[in-house]
């Protein structure tokens, strides 16, 4: 659809006839915390500088300039934040009744999409490694297809065990219909 604001949340560009979206999954929210934390720390920097310069003689004359330059600095931090948010929101895994699609936005003009048909899937494996992934229950899902040397890997998926079970149920329906 040309104007995708009004379409159902379960449809996507390139959807096939009679193809239903079963799952739309983005990476776990934890992947955003590190960039946001650094941006937050950087946002505190002007206030730290203000703490040091407020008692200088020249500060009253330059205070408005200081806060104006701080706003320019915040504009840059805002751009960093929305860029990271955009990358997070545009990177997703779509599981339909026919295939699995990996959409990866790597930059403004850098986009990758990979598709694997359900009937081509040979093996599904989970990989949860580390303190935070274990406690927050997110990890990688690897899909091995028939005849392919390369595995499809979906990184940092929330609740990957449930996603694996859903895909296996869909595979059973595809390979053994009725």
């Amino acid at each position, binding site marked *: 659809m040309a104007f*995708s*604001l009004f379409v159902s*949340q*379960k449809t*996507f*560009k390139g959807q096939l006839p009679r193809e239903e979206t079963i799952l*739309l999954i*983005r990476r776990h929210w934890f992947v955003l915390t590190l960039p946001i934390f650094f941006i937050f720390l950087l946002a505190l920097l002007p206030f730290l500088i203000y703490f040091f310069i407020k008692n200088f003689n*020249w500060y009253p*004359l*330059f205070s*408005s*300039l200081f*806060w*104006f330059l*701080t*706003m*320019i600095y*915040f*504009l840059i931090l*805002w*751009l960093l934040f*929305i*860029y990271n*948010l*955009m990358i997070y*929101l*545009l990177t*997703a895994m*779509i599981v339909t009744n026919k295939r699995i699609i990996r*959409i990866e*936005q790597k930059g*403004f003009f850098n*986009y990758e999409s990979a598709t694997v048909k359900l009937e081509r899937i040979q093996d599904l494996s989970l990989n949860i490694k580390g303190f935070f992934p274990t406690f927050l229950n997110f990890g990688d899902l690897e899909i091995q297809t028939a005849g392919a040397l390369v595995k499809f890997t979906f990184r940092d998926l929330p609740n990957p065990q449930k996603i694996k079970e859903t895909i296996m149920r869909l595979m059973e329906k595809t390979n053994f219909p009725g």
Partner: protein
Amino acid sequence: MKFVLIFLFVVLTVYLWFVFLTIYHLVRFGVGKEPKSASLYVFLGSMILLILTVIYFSQVNWKEILKFIGF
């Protein structure tokens, strides 16, 4: 003063272009309702920051500052 205005114009143009690209990508390529909602928040947040920047710019006493540094 002219250079200051040119500086502000360039900064805001680059900023608005970046914001436009972000919102365009979210609306055009986003799947599901979250990217669309996020694009609204990005737009509102960007406009608020833009207005605040212009307000702070208008409060700067450029004549006094330029006189102090010798221009």
